[in-house]
């Protein structure tokens, strides 16, 4: 054990030292490995973006449509290209989009809708315009939920208004926008839910096992009662059923094995040296069947002598073989 501890210290220490010593030449930390890369497809006047948002393993779709005019183009916008202004980029798990609306009457208002089953009731929709103050605006989008878990966020924007990036009432609106969810709210919320979820799952399993255990125990009790009944009948002189072995203490099994030489106990004998079995069994037998005066001299039952303690230790160690794995799990 000491060898392992020493080696463990050595390996960890070495890894840490090596990495620490080499840090000046290390690659940059915080590489964006989950950057969404949306693919856009046109669906009539609407455009659908299919992407893998941050913190998700399955892709989602976001469908952009307008009540008047036409969604001419939707593109992905790199968050690094806009000013943060106190906005946490982690909240934008889909990153940002630039949406170009055309065929609008100049200066008119348009309602843009973005629908996705990725949106939740707490999803907000933000607009960005570097020329406006503040640069970021919560659209206060209205939500509409559909039975297939799709939520639609709808908000109104004016051609040439403060969040039209081209700034002109020219029949075209260019928006930089994106759905926003509280990253930390999600992370902490899901933490609690999932931690208690583990309790719930194991709790249900525990109840299932307790119920099964009770059923089995009562079945065994009934069976044992039947056996007792048949034993009490004078005509019956059947030997003790072998299944009783499973109900016996291992120490008793060892002692019985020595006395009876029954083949059912072969498994015990093959795991231990016969001399050891004999010694353990004898020690335990003497301990258990010794006169009361001897036991009382030794004190309580727990304060057993060195012989029996050694025997128990040996039996426990041999039982451990059942759990000996080649690989830790």
């Amino acid at each position, binding site marked *: 054990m000491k060898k392992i501890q020493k080696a*463990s210290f050595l390996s960890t220490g070495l890894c840490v030292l090596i990495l620490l010593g080499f840090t000046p030449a290390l690659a940059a930390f915080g590489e964006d490995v989950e950057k969404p890369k949306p693919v856009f497809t046109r669906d009539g006047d609407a455009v659908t973006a299919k992407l893998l948002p941050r913190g998700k393993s399955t892709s989602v779709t976001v469908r952009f449509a307008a009540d008047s005019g036409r969604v001419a183009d939707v593109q992905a916008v790199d968050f690094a290209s806009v000013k943060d202004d106190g906005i946490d980029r982690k909240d934008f798990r889909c990153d940002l989009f630039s949406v170009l609306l055309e065929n609008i009457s100049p200066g008119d208002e348009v309602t843009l809708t973005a629908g996705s089953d990725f949106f939740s009731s707490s999803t907000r929709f933000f607009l960005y315009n570097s020329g406006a103050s503040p640069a970021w605006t919560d659209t206060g989008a209205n939500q509409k939920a559909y039975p297939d878990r799709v939520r639609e966020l709808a908000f109104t924007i004016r051609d040439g208004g403060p969040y039209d990036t081209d700034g002109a009432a020219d029949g075209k609106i260019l928006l930089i926008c994106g759905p926003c969810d509280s990253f930390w709210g999600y992370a902490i919320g899901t933490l609690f839910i999932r931690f208690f979820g583990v309790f719930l799952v194991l709790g249900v399993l525990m109840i299932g096992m307790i119920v099964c255990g009770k059923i089995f125990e009562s079945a065994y009790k009934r069976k044992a009662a039947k056996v007792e009944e048949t034993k009490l009948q004078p005509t019956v002189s059947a030997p003790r059923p072998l299944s009783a072995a499973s109900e016996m203490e291992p120490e008793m099994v060892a002692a019985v094995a020595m006395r009876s030489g029954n083949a059912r106990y072969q498994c015990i004998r093959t795991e231990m040296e016969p001399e050891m079995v004999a010694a353990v069994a004898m020690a335990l037998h003497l301990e258990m069947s010794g006169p009361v005066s001897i036991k009382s001299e030794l004190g309580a039952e727990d304060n057993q002598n060195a012989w029996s303690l050694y025997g128990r230790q040996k039996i426990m160690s041999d039982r451990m073989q059942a759990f000996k794995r080649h690989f830790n799990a």
Partner: protein
Amino acid sequence: MSWESVLELIKQILVTQTGIPHMTGGAALMLCVGLVFMYLAIAKEFEPLLLLPIGFGIFLVNFPLTPLMGQTEHGAPELIRFFYHYGVEWEIIPCVIFLGLGAMTDFGPLIANPKTLIIGAGAQLGVFVTYVGVLFFGFTLKEAASVGIIGGADGPTTIYLTAKLAPHLLGANAVAAYSYMAMVPLIQPPIMRLFTTPEQRRIKMRQLRAVSKREKIIFPLVGATLIVLLIPAVAPLMGMFMLGNIMRESGVVKRLADTAETDLMNIVVIFLGVSVGATMKAETFLTWKPLLIFAFGLLDFVICTVGGILTVQIMNLFSKEKMNPLIGSAGVSAVPMSARVSNTEGLKADPTNFLIMHAMGPNLAGVIGSAAAAGMFIAMFQ
């Protein structure tokens, strides 16, 4: 052929066909890391079954221009990439290891005392605390989940989850998980003593009831049904685990159970070790992240140990029959190392107090608990 053209040819061969000019400082450092791992495995016998192939994988893949982890011109995977692709990326190897583990595991102590399942759940505390902790250091949600699961002290589960969520962290996570699992006898005892009183450490628990063969056969069926119903995402791991166990307990397919726990296990461990080692190329491994993973992995283990002990303490408040809180630390999986640590600490407090069989319950519950936690994370990102 002139001398100039001969020299040019030699130069061209040296530059394009040998690795010497392409050797970098990072690659040299990783070769040393590989050698250290092999030294620990061979000379110190420190988790040799895994560290030797991992070490050799690191050693081999960090030589320049080696056709091992890339793809050929025709798009076919190169040798170790092939093992990695089909074994780890396709999530086959961790599941096969779970099959073998199931075939090795005797669930008797857990069936005899199902209450210990709650300890296995409590000992996952560190998994979730670490998950939040690493988020503060700029890890993504998926990376945080894969680092958090290290505290579950379950090697195959860590590899399974990391391969699914953050494959670029596979090497660091796997090495951290296995290193700390080997360090359980070092990490846990001080925490166990800190969170228990001498009286509590002397608590003797009632002898576990005998568990019949029928109960042991029913357990994998009940277990698989309930767990898979509640967390379908964990079906590949738990399904294989319970299949291995029912093969063992039924006793009718001894050959299959033997194969699963020996030969099959050995085969996949070779491929797993080499594949994990081969992911640790200098350009992907030499960042701050592995360093943070090692630090948080340790913290994770500590919190998981505390979580297990505190769960027992809380359960004792509501239970007439007290449990020895030392068995709580065994809730961190790491079978059977942490159960042995509980037993050793119990014997130190009272030389007549044998806790090993009692500690095996939470120990096995920890395996199920960490798989459940992994399933929760997988489901979270779906």
